[in-house]
């Protein structure tokens, strides 16, 4: 800044000074209370006129007690939530290398078009004759998804990846029951490296989950799968590329063995972003796969949702797809909502017709890239991950040896062992350097896992700075500079938070503190 004499101020000796402030704020790092502490029940930020007197029709069910909801005026609301937002890391502020989560750029065009009144302000149950453009968009998006995956059908209604898993596994269960094998095929095979949602989904549908042991190279052994398959197996659930960032190279053999054994192949498509335009799951023998529109197709993660998880299906599962679905016939395009028009359908998975707001965003992303751009995006994501791998492999250890990876690179903590530091310590030190840590302690098959996914959205300069930072941290760890790690983070809005305390005595909502004695 400039002082009144228009001379630059200098930091001088104040650079190392720690100041206790009156407000507990630290310059731009502003403390902010809860709305329950700063709001008041009688304040409102919405101007509404009291209705003229009328005879209510509530049948005596009027609410009697106060609700306990504070209000804020509009400027107070803006300030409160802007201050909260400033306590978050985001893709827009920096590289966000969460493996398996795909934190790529979220184009703002997508936000703009999703807010067009013709998409945002239409009701799911207004007459179909008044929403032809919406139906057309869903049909177009479905065409893109089927073409990219080489599959025969797509169920558009699942609301997130895990909901898509439910959809795909229900379709498999319905197909098995249609063959009269519902009682005998009770087992689902899943590798140890699977996302937690896979076994949770299978168990929820009444299947028994049996694990496929990991092979030394981090992929699944087709011979081992063949050994586990039998007349009691309903399906195999496999992520490809897998959660170690590797392409399952025996996938064709695994798919064939699964089909020959009368079972179905569910592919977790969380990592489809690595292979779009490079290969098609339909050509590999997949029967069902969900696509996370919020990963591969850039709809924003939004701090944990909303997502969307359409499921592509093979011809042998297509008849069992959930309702509602689109049908184009001599009368044009329409939404089939009646279950009696779809005798084999597994039924309805949620109210209405799916995550339209996410469809518009994903479709805008696909149109912007085009077939050529999507392929380039996959290649850049894979190239960037390998660039990081090749730039860190001399300092950090990899559980399955140094070999080319797909869109994410997996390290373990073997190299950290001698330092006495943990993966968590290393991750927290990354926060002080201005980075969101990578995914840690997942997949479970790597000890102290660190899974790094840079995505295609980073420039080379950004990747180089990240690599240089990681190298500096790794060397500091090796030199035994443990204080840089054990106390981290120092520069975040909060120091390390006590998760044990939170779980031991759960405080899940604000309650008015007892009055303090004067």
């Amino acid at each position: 800044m400039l002082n009144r004499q228009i001379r630059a101020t200098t930091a001088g000796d104040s650079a190392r000074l720690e100041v206790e402030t009156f407000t507990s704020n630290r310059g731009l790092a502003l403390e902010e209370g809860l709305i329950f502490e700063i709001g008041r029940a009688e304040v409102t930020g919405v101007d509404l006129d009291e209705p003229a007197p009328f005879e209510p029709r509530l049948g005596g069910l009027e609410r009697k007690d106060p609700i306990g909801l504070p209000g804020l005026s509009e400027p107070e609301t803006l300030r409160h939530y802007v201050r909260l937002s400033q306590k978050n890391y985001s893709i827009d502020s920096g590289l966000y290398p969460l493996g398996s989560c795909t934190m790529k750029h979220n184009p703002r065009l997508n936000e703009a078009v999703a807010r067009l009144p013709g998409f945002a302000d239409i009701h799911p149950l207004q007459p179909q004759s008044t929403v032809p453009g919406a139906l057309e968009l869903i049909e177009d998006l479905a065409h893109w998804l089927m073409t990219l995956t080489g599959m025969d059908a797509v169920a558009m209604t699942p609301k997130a990846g895990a909901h898509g898993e439910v959809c795909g596994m229900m379709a498999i269960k319905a197909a098995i029951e249609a063959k009269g094998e519902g009682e005998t095929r009770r087992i689902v095979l899943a590798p140890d490296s699977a996302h937690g949602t896979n076994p949770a989904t299978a168990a929820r549908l009444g299947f028994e989950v049996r694990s496929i042991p990991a092979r030394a190279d981090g992929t699944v052994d087709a011979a081992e799968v063949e050994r586990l398959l039998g007349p009691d197996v309903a399906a195999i659930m496999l992520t490809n590329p897998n959660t170690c960032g590797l392409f399952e190279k025996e996938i064709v053999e695994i798919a064939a063995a699964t089909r020959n054994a009368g079972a179905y192949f569910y592919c977790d498509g969380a990592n489809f972003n690595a292979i779009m335009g490079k290969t098609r799951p339909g050509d590999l023998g997949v029967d069902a796969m969900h696509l996370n529109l919020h990963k591969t197709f850039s709809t924003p993660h939004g701090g944990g949702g909303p997502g969307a998880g359409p499921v592509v299906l093979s011809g042998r599962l297509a008849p069992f797809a959930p309702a509602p679905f689109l049908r184009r016939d001599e009368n044009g395009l329409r939404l089939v909502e009646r279950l009696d028009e779809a005798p084999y359908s597994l039924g309805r998975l949620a109210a209405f017709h799916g995550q339209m707001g996410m469809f518009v965003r994903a479709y805008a992303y696909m149109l912007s890239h085009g077939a050529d751009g999507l392929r380039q995006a996959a290649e850049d994501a894979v190239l960037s991950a390998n660039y990081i791998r090749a730039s860190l492999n001399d300092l950090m250890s990899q559980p399955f040896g140094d070999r080319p990876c797909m869109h994410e690179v997996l390290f373990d903590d073997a190299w950290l062992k001698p330092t006495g530091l943990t993966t968590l310590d290393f991750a927290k030190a990354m926060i002080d350097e201005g980075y969101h840590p990578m995914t840690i302690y997942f997949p479970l098959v790597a000890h102290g896992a660190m899974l790094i996914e840079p995505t295609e959205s980073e420039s080379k300069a950004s990747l180089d700075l990240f690599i240089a930072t990681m190298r500096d941290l790794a060397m500091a760890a090796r030199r035994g500079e443990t204080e840089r790690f054990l106390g981290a983070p120092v520069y975040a809005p909060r120091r390390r938070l006590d998760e044990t305390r939170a779980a031991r005595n759960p405080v899940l909502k604000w309650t008015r503190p007892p009055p303090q004695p004067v």
Partner: protein
Amino acid sequence: MRYLPLTSEDRSDMLARIGASGVDAFFSDIPAEKRLAQTLDLPLRKSEMEVSRLLSGLGAKNTAAGSVPFFVGAGAYKHHIPASVDHLIQRSEFLTSYTPYQPEIAQGTLQYIFEFQTQVAALTGMDVANASMYDGSTATVEAVLMAHRITGKRKAVLSGGLHPHYAETVRTFSHMTGDASTALPPDVFATENMGAMIDADTSCVVVQTPDVFGNLRDLSPLAEICKAKGALLIAVFTEAVSLGLVTPPGAMGADIVAGEGQSIGNSLNFGGPYVGLFAAKARYLRQIPGRLCGETLDAEGRRGFVLTLSTREQHIKRDKATSNICTNSGLCCLAFTIHMTLLGEAGLRRLARINHANAVDLADRLGAVSGVEVLNKTFFNEFTIRVPCDGAELIERLAEKGVLGGVPVSRLLPGRGLDDLILVASSEVNTPDDRAAYAQALRGAL
């Protein structure tokens, strides 16, 4: 391509550093005959202007709710959303962050979730609420599964006033899991006797209020029966604004509450994304599905928030988890929280009174049309009318006259002999002119 920062030169330099001949070297694990040799048969890249033009064209083919007198509800409601809500949820730090796995740099998300949980608990009159579910229908399924876990019984009894999409969703899951669900016949006048349906195998009864036909239901007597018979009472709502005016489920003895939060802060979006609200009595805390945010302290003793009790969840418990759910409805839950903060108690109560007043006025206007009968004794902002013709055809005729007049019951419950019924909703966005236009169009269409 405008979203890809790497240049050809960057790519060459990076390949050189890696020591790879070309990017295809990284894809060598894909069986050679399965690699795509050429670009797929899909359009090539488009500029922002082209995409914008194309999608604007598709959007323009649809009739937006705000462009006509609009009375469609049945589980999704058009309300006014203050401009600041949409501005705030588009802040980069909210929009482009992930689930708060690193709490030190996600206090913004965690604190609003804590505020959301507190608001939902207050609104529903329950002890605890989670960080949201996908929507009301899937929250209802989760509530049923939770009741099964708690009671060790596996049969759900579904009210005939439960939104048919919700009932179908529960039925899909119970069929797949081998659990039982008994759906009562459509209960237009809220006269069913649910207590009599509870037997020794019943884990829960699921009742909606206001129900899908708009009736308000006093759940207290049913709560007593549930208690006596060892079943849990699951209360459902699809119109969260109603809770500003009517007795909340918690005050009527509900054990678990599942509801749709769309109508606060969230657009219609043709059915999604929405936000499921989920709350329960404290004693069932450890059986609650989904994310929970809790208060704690940091290393300097300052208050902070973290995701907690995650030993219930799939990423820890895998096949033993309470649910397979991973995501919540983040931004939609933030929109709910911001809109609710703007409203505050005073604003929410007034908003609810305006909704009720507008619906009462509309019911009186439509009831005065010859041949039209309003069936409800009680309602909040939605009610059922009987018309002297096919309801679905009438709704089409009204649409041609530029009025979106509601949802024909036959669309939700086909083949049940309810083809002459229409669900009609009226919120604060409807003006007296809109309501007069509806009554006039109805006269003309009959």
